[in-house]
């Protein structure tokens, strides 16, 4: 029999599979299937999401036929199956469930669009379908071919070398994303880290997007990022567009009957219409350091070897990020609160694009004026009426601005922030360095004339290229 594992690309759900069954009284049935999952060399699992005729037939007659199409070659395949059992827990169920949950969260259908069971079938035969031939340009199909381990190992080595040359957390995150592109060819990637408050992730680095999405937030359980974080397991989705359309079809009919309301789509970081996504949790000793997501607008971009390599990479990246964060928080010799330094007049920042200042008086050649408003109840900062950042990074920025205004000091240490009770940092795992990095990147993105500039390990300066007016709101 043709080796089932060599049909891996058929199991991505990119092109709908077809399931043929028959009732005990001999009436055939045909249905399209959202997913066929590879289990082992002798078994596959079919997703059971709704009680339907196929499910009823299988419960009384275990014979089934599944037809699949290889998205790489367009070759059709027929798998003759025999139903064995249904699983509602375990690794196969979890793999299938996570993917469905991610799709459901995009369409606001969590709890409705869900996996009831993974139905396990023994594969009795695998045959190519006559008349559904492979494309000529796909080349000869070697069904015994293994993934190109040499390429994958080389890519991992290249990425590893980049990571070792990074000198700070900032550079490390950029090195990882740059390596994703140059070593693996993944042009759209992002890293998210847990927010200070539980149950959220915030984008701390991204590459390949028209606007860098730093600061974009997502809750646990939302989209591929949130589901990866919640489950702490990798997820790969191919043909997302088609699967979303299927979910939307259900939502539309359910809404028409008043069974659910059409919900607002959740704006998540990343491509507007990705068709392939691969997300891995970055875990260090069981702690979620972050989530790495690569995505593409191609329906089937991430192949088996990509998935294996990125999953393997997840743990390594988590260790690298964790180590760098620990290194950055180590106190430097003679670290103390810096002496007050006289506040300088605002210095124009090269490359900063000046937006019209708030109010009048921003004549050419004069420093512009910025209004920075802190909303205490929401722990949120708006600059000139536009959202900048919230939560702990907002509190830190507000503190820095107030110290600068009150004491005239512009240099700070990480240590003094850690000791500041008003910031209420946890005694350990405070992730202060990543919060500062997030703040710095948001400033670069939204108001580059207001800058946080590292001056030494654990030290930084607040540089303002504008006159800043502080406004505290309830």
């Amino acid at each position, binding site marked *: 029999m043709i080796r089932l594992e060599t049909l891996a690309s058929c199991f991505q759900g990119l092109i709908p599979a*077809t399931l043929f069954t028959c009732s005990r009284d001999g009436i055939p049935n045909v249905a*399209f299937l959202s997913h066929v999952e590879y289990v082992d060399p002798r078994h596959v699992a079919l997703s059971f999401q*709704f009680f339907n005729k196929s499910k009823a037939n299988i419960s009384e007659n275990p014979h089934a036929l599944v037809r699949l199409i290889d998205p790489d070659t367009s070759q059709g395949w027929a798998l003759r199956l025999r139903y064995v059992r249904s699983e509602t827990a375990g690794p196969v169920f979890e793999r299938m469930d996570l993917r469905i949950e991610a799709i459901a969260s995009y369409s606001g259908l969590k709890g409705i669009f869900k996996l009831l069971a993974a139905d396990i079938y023994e594969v009795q035969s695998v045959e190519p379908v006559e008349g559904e031939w492979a494309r000529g340009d796909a080349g000869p199909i070697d069904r015994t071919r293994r993934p190109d381990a040499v390429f994958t190992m080389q890519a991992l080595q290249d990425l590893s070398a980049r990571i070792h040359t990074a000198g700070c957390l900032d550079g490390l995150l950029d090195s990882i994303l740059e390596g994703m592109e140059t070593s693996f060819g993944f042009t759209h990637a992002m890293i998210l880290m847990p927010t200070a408050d539980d149950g959220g992730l915030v984008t701390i680095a991204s590459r390949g997007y028209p606007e860098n999405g730093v600061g974009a937030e997502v809750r646990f359980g939302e989209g591929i990022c949130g589901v990866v974080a919640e489950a702490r397991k990798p997820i790969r989705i191919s043909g997302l*567009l088609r699967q979303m*359309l299927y979910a939307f079809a*259900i939502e539309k009919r359910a809404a028409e009957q008043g069974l659910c309301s059409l919900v607002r789509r959740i704006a998540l970081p990343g491509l507007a219409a990705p068709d392939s996504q691969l997300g891995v949790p970055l875990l260090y000793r069981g702690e979620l350091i972050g989530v790495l997501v690569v995505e593409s607008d191609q329906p089937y971009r991430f192949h088996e070897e990509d998935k294996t390599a990125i999953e393997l990479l997840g743990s390594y990246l988590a260790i690298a990020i964790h180590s760098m964060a620990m290194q950055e928080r180590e106190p430097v010799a003679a670290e103390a609160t810096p002496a007050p330094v006289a506040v300088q007049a605002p210095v124009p920042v090269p490359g900063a694009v000046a937006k019209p200042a708030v109010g009048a008086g921003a004549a050419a050649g004069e420093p512009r004026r910025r209004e920075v408003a802190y909303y205490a109840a929401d722990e949120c900062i708006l600059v000139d009426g536009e959202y900048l950042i919230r939560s702990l990074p907002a509190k830190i920025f507000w503190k820095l601005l107030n110290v600068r205004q009150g004491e005239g000091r512009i240099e700070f240490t990480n240590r003094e922030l850690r000791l500041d009770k008003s910031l209420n940092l946890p005694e350990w795992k405070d992730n202060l360095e990543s919060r500062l990095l997030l703040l710095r990147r948001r400033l670069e993105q939204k108001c580059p004339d207001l800058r946080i500039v590292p001056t030494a390990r654990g030290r930084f300066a607040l540089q303002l290229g504008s006159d800043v007016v502080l406004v505290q709101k309830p």
Partner: protein
Amino acid sequence: MPPGIVPGFRASGMVGQWRQTMIDGELAAFLEEGISIQLGTRNARLEPNGVRVVAVAVEADGRHLVAYVPEIAVSHVLPDLEANGHAAMVFARPPDERACQVKGTFTGARPAAAGEREAIEAQWGRWLDRLKSIGIERLALELWDVWPCVAIRLQVTAIFNQTPGPNAGARLA
């Protein structure tokens, strides 16, 4: 029935029991639109078999339809149909996922006529164009066999809604 597609089946002795129209004009237009179609059968051991259908034609009485199956694959289903007559066809249209299941009994089969080829290939071509809406390029399936075809005629016995959602499985006719 689209122009160019002509009847001409050998009798199977199973025709003529139904008088009620099963497929109205709107549904016929949907079925012939150029969408995904599969035909399922079963053998004496109740093992299912199935093939891809490249085009269909609904007859004017709304009670019969003709499924065009590539000749190269028809041996997977024709022996079953000739032995027990039971057939099921699923029709699905991306991107709105409208779908239905047609149950029927076999009334005959014949080689598709040369005069039918243009209409069959046009319907298949519309399906390939539609695939783009789910991210599959037309080129991907252009090497698949479409012609020559065998025309399989079914008498429709039931139609079920198969559009995903709460009404999936409801009988339409």
